[in-house]
């Protein structure tokens, strides 16, 4: 009985799980192995008998070195970080206030306003990039980080607002009421009592907003032009590809290093994410 069960468990759980995980993770292994493989091995046809693409016997740091010293990659990393931090800050500020307002205050138009913010989350950048390019040009923001810092919050604010609104609903009203009985104004109760209690919600909203901004590509592609102003995603694509020539070693090293910051941030919070999602569904 138990032997049969264990066997079934391997066949029905572990084996499919292993296959799926291998499939999901293989591209990352491929980035890694490509970024340390010397060019001579890299550009060898898959049909050639010496071809052994899954590993390398002569790892090299040349691609990473080239990326860091001969391209503007460190600069792109810095630009991405700057834009992500600033736009996350703006979005959290707006989302925190709006989320509280929608979750806690009763006022005419609250319902439609909430739905309006929700729907604006579903307006994709691909619908707006052409008119926005015109706006950015006429405000003379083209090729500056401001073009991104001001436009990224459009998809981050709705998201932060909704996430924080849900979070505020889980904070007991009694907390606030007690403070108000003790003589605090509504505003004071909000800032001193409710906002500190919402810190975990703010943290997860911030993480998601940050990664949304880190991943954005289209606006950065359209609004930025000089090589030293670009973000990682755009820089890697436009500067490490020359016509038909792809510098694969450097490209994969760039992909790996560009992905690392978000991967690190996320890996600490994945359990938190699942728990927060379950929590919001139960609520």
């Amino acid at each position, binding site marked *: 009985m138990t032997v049969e069960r264990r066997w079934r468990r391997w066949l029905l759980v572990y084996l499919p799980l292993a296959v799926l995980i291998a499939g999901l993770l293989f591209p990352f292994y491929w980035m890694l192995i490509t970024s340390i493989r010397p060019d001579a091995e890299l550009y060898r046809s898959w049909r050639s008998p010496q071809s052994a693409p899954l590993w390398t016997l002569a790892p090299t740091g040349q691609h990473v070195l080239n990326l860091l010293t001969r391209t503007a990659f460190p600069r792109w990393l810095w630009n991405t970080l700057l834009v992500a931090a600033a736009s996350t800050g703006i979005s959290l500020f*707006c989302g925190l206030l709006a989320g509280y307002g929608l979750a806690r205050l009763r006022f005419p138009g609250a319902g439609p306003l909430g739905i309006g913010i929700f729907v604006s989350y579903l*307006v994709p950048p691909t619908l707006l990039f052409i008119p926005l*390019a015109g706006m950015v040009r006429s405000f003379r923001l083209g090729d500056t980080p401001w073009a991104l810092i001001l436009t990224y919050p459009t998809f981050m604010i709705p998201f932060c607002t909704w996430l924080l609104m849900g979070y505020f609903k889980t904070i007991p009203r009694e907390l606030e009421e007690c403070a108000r009985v003790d003589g605090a104004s*509504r505003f004071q109760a909000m800032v001193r009592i409710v906002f500190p209690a919402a810190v975990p919600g703010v943290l997860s909203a911030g993480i998601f907003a940050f990664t949304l901004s880190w991943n954005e*590509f289209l606006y950065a592609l359209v609004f930025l032009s000089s090589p030293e102003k670009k973000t990682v*995603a755009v820089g890697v694509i436009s500067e490490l590809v020359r016509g038909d020539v792809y510098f694969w070693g450097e490209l994969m090293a760039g992909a790996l290093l560009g992905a690392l910051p978000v991967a690190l941030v996320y890996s600490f919070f994945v359990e938190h994410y699942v728990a927060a999602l379950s929590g919001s569904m139960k609520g």
Partner: protein
Amino acid sequence: MESKDRPGSGPGPGRLLPSPSDRHALPGRLLDSERSLAFLLLAPAVAMLLVFIAYPFATGIWYALSSVRVGDAGHFVGLQNLIAAWHDSIFRTALRNTILYTFWANLFKLILGMGLALLLNHPFRGVRLVRAAVLLPFIVPTVLSALAWRWMFDPTFSVLNWLLYHGGLIAERLPFLSDARWALWSAIAVNTWRGTPFFAVTLLAGLQTINPELHEAAALDGAGSWKRFWHVTRPLLRPVIIVVVVFSIVQTFSDFQLVYVLTGGGPANSTHLVATYAYQVGIGAGLLGEGAAMSLFMFPVLLTVVWSQLRHLRRLEGV
């Protein structure tokens, strides 16, 4: 969900036992400050969204109805751009590709994501690590992972061909991105790869809210695992499934980066999506009006999807 805690739970004077002196002044003052506070709190968010979504959206409609180009303010041309787009064979291909891409990628993501969620819902050692690892494709910027896929699909150096050939599955190389019939399916595969973790993790979160006693009761009644999934898990998970699918349809339908990096719309314009073609026309060629008209074609579809979701969820909540 929302409406349940509204009536009676507000900080009304009846519940709080305020001191007798301010019992009468309180309601009026509260209402007053509540409105003005709400206005203050919502102003920054609403201002940002008006300036950077509503205004460009209106501008986009104007663009679509005018002959605006880079460096030329243009004039009103009516529906000319929309009609021109409709008669453009590449645009039609792009529209058809977008529909195929959205349909198949979401179907695959739902099936694989559900499977993965059910697997991850089993307790086993290292489950935390596995969950974190599984989420990676979703976290990593699409452009960067799409680049890795482009490299894996490379016609001459393709590791996938190497694996399939040495695994005895193929005799000749597969033209992943160089053949029009293969390229769109390759993009669908990459989109599926990227989106499956999001489906899996969100559905997993939904699964964890399901009371295990329900499954035990169904098992006692003799229901097998498939029946338990279909009659217990699926109905309870329905609201989560709807939210995830709608969110993903919007994302997939308006996708740009994956195809831009993978094929650039090629070979011979065969894999363009609405967004990549609108980019090529609007930004690449500088025909802002025509490009804006093309991207506006997405709007009715997205609106229908979002609207039906809102309606559906409201009905579910009403039950």
